[in-house]
């Protein structure tokens, strides 16, 4: 703004705005994304931010130039001699902090920042904190999954007692499934956790989730890729989910994450008490041999009534793999079967899942299903559509042999398929 330029005021300077019935002093703030261009935002002594429109009859004076403030980082005691746990930051709500100057929420940048969000964790374990990258989870890519799997495998092979990954919740279950397939058998638990409320607020679920993850690593004998999040709106317990069976089922609640078609593996109370609800892989000394290959030419399509066969054909023809989230037991408009048959004949692998999420695909019950089967569509059974998508990318990344890929998709590798679904 020209007025600011003419008085050379910068964010952080203490300014006085006077004239036109106003006399306001405070620290100049960055103007909001939606602010009017003539409005200056000032933090008053009382702590309130206020927006003042500057008119030609007003004066803006600098009272004091701002000082550059450095945030002293609290480096927690390292907890030497305690079990070793790696905490890997990827970004997201849990490892972000609010910039008090701008009010914007930023992903944590350094390992120290990470630990500063929950310093108490160093009381129970010897923490190796590392910010692997720092992005919002909606920006996560296949390359990020691979990098994360590699780092995690290195930590596991270094004899660590467990790895905690801090992740944004939006795509957490995709990353969880990807790590699950890429890491294979693991000796110690890898727990992915996050927060639905950022850690810059007193009510954040970050503290309990992160602390509980460390507690679970220390006191459980489970060794899988797991997702740990709140189990209810209360801070009194958390649920530990199998990576391939969990899904974000709510946009904002703390207990958004739910296991679909199975129970959570365990629930962990605030006193550290664990109740196991499913069987699980146990800790061992196995060496991790990550298999990172992923085929990126895989499409993930939600079928809807009225879907254009042309668009559908175009998409499936361009990809080596397609996961369809069909209706009910696993259906699409029968007009789409012909292009699917054509694609499969030319080497595309197509997997059918259900947009019902709960329950299993069954292609035997209706004629459409039987037609899909005879066209060569693979039943995704009770796999979550997202898990099937990740698994198909991974399977196609392991081999070019379609028969082999079909075999992988039908095998239960990381608990992604369950053969029994219970009444409750």
């Amino acid at each position, binding site marked *: 703004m020209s007025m600011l330029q003419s008085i050379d005021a910068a964010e952080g300077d203490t300014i006085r705005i006077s004239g036109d019935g106003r006399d306001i002093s405070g620290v100049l703030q960055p103007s909001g994304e939606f602010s009017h261009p003539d409005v200056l935002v000032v933090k008053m002594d009382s702590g309130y*931010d206020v927006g003042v429109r500057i008119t030609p009859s007003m004066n803006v004076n600098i009272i004091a130039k701002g000082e550059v403030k450095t945030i002293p980082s609290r480096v927690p005691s390292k907890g030497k001699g305690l079990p070793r746990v790696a905490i890997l930051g990827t970004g997201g709500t849990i490892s972000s902090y609010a910039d008090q100057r701008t009010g914007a929420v930023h992903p944590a940048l350094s390992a120290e920042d990470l630990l500063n969000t929950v310093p108490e964790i160093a009381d129970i374990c010897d923490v190796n904190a590392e910010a692997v990258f720092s992005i919002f989870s909606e920006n996560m890519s296949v390359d990020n999954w691979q990098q994360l799997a590699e780092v995690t495998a290195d930590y596991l092979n270094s004899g660590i007692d467990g790895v905690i990954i801090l992740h944004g919740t939006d795509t957490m279950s995709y990353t969880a499934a990807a790590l699950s397939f890429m890491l294979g058998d693991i000796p110690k638990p890898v727990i992915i956790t996050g927060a639905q409320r950022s*850690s810059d607020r007193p009510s954040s679920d970050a503290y309990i989730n992160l602390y509980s993850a460390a507690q679970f690593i220390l006191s459980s004998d489970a060794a899988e890729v797991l997702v740990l999040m709140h189990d209810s709106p209360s801070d009194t317990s958390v649920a530990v989910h199998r990576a391939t069976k969990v899904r974000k089922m709510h946009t904002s609640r703390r207990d958004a994450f739910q296991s679909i078609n199975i129970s959570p593996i365990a629930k962990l109370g605030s006193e550290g008490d664990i109740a196991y609800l499913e069987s699980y892989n146990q800790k061992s000394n196995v060496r991790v041999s990550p298999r990172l290959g992923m085929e990126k030419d895989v499409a993930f399509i939600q079928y809807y009534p009225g879907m254009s066969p042309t668009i559908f054909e175009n998409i499936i023809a361009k990809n080596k793999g397609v996961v369809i989230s069909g209706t009910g037991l696993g259906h699409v408009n029968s007009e789409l079967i012909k292009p699917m048959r054509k694609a499969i004949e030319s080497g595309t692998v197509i997997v059918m899942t259900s947009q019902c999420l709960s329950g299993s695909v069954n292609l035997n019950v209706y004629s459409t299903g039987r037609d899909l089967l005879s066209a060569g569509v693979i039943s995704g059974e009770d796999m979550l559509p997202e898990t099937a998508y990740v698994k198909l990318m991974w399977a196609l990344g392991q081999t070019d042999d379609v028969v082999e890929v079909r075999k992988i998709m039908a095998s239960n590798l990381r608990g992604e398929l369950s053969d029994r679904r219970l009444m409750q």
Partner: protein
Amino acid sequence: MSHEVTVGLEIHQQLNTRKLFCNCPSCLVEEEGATFQRRLRPIQSEEGKIDRAALDQAERKMQFRYQSPSSASCLVEADEEPPHDASSEAIDVALTVAALLGAKPLDEIYFMRKLVIDGSNTTGFQRTAMIALDGFLEVNGRRISIDTLCLEEDAARKVETDGSEITYRLDRLGIPLIEIATAPDMHSPEEVKEVAQRIGSIMRATRKVKRGIGTIREDVNISIPGGARVEIKGVQELRMLPTYVEKEMERQQSLLAIRDILSGRGIEPVAIEVTDLTYLFEGCKSKVITSALKSGGKVMVSRLPGFTGVLRSEDGKLRLGAEMAQYARTKGVRGIFHSDELPAYGIEKQYVDAIRDALKLGPQDAFALCAASAAKAREALKTAVERANGALVGVPEETRDPLPDGSSVYSRPLPGADRMHPETDVLPISVPTDRMENILSNLPELPEIRIERIANDYGIHIQQSTQLVREGWDDVFEEIATDNELAALAARTLTSTLSELEREIDISQLNENILKAAFAGVSSGTFAKEAVPDVLRKMAEGMNIDEAVSELGLSAMSADEAREIVARVIREREDFVREKGKAAIGPLMGPVMAELRGRLDGKAANELLREELQKLLS
């Protein structure tokens, strides 16, 4: 010129709109709804500092249980869904009040997070925004500055405290509140009340504010020369404001007297030492001591060299001990004893002497004692001795809770200034010129205009209409006063009958609906206007209108019955009537009305009397 006292007010008024950040109705409900439990933890501020008041709360390690009634709360109040856009209706009301107070609205409104981790906000902060600055009002010819006008969300309602768990209900959380802060411009207890009344009537002029107990709360900042700013937070009874101010003035004066006594004695700050003297209390009959010992507790004692006589003076005017006990209670103990009040409470002289011996106390040395679990007693005494040391300086700045008798009790330190963060979930709200112009061209009737109009329209005295508006009865009055006769009765009832009743009984039950019901009884002829005070008295005691009417024997009187009574009254005074002739009507009205006991109104009784008199004389 130095004033005897300096007072600033912060007034919080609930608005009668939907909630500020969601579409829930703003009402309190009986429903408990589903419950959940949370903890809150202090967060670092920009400079890595943790707020003083926040830390104080966290140290009490409270756990919070929330009741979430679905009739008055949703996921937003539970902090399970981000806030929606701020209610534009609430913002308009705030802008209207700002205009009525001559305050200048900001051009862009920014919601902030004010850190509050006592659990009363599920988020751990209260959302609040500065709406306008620099208004004023005039009271008795004095100009009182209005520094700020904010719009904020009300906190959850505390339902229960059980040990370290507090239960809140989420119905109140999120109700919009206008917060008006005056400059410290008031200098007498009575003036504080008048300013509060004036601000209250200006806010009510919008017709968008809630009425009734608990819908308006005042924080009173009080200091005397040489004293310190003390905030009495959450006064609900406006008429008690002068008492809170007077009692706080006395309290600060006595603390200054204590300081002078201690400095005259040359007392230095006391080193904090807590000694376990449990072994001295074998056989002690004090209930407090025995119950503490039974549950494995200890009797801990701290020396207070030189403090004798100021913990509780003979005349009861110096009461540092009570202040110390209030601080100690924040550490979870039931209280402390001090040497100025002992022997008492079953702690006999032999034990007091034994403590004095054990701690080698001289005659001017005092002590404080706490019987509780060792850790709690130690913390409690530490805090109590720190409070005693504070007396060497004078009056500590603090926040206090109001008590019903007009006194107050310590609750926590004054919050520091560094507890505001931007609320990044709520977009800034622009106040364009046309929005303000629209508000300015639709301003509600101001109190002084209203006072004049009501006096003119209803033919009541200007003093009565002034009082109606000042005390907030004007709306009810206008509803009741359907004709001039009822207007006169309603004005008299609302301005004088109520305050007469209040001197005798608790009238807090008498809300608008009850008053309307009582007057409906008059206008439908169920009972006479003379019976209104008696009916209201019964209704204040909790009866409904029918019960009150039947209890008072006011059920409608037949014309024959009334005529018979009137005729009897005349017969009994026949000589007098014959002597005075028609002039007897006046003197006879008294006995007639007494006999009718409010079952017939005066006008009808007068008519009957005239007729019966005519019969006798003709």
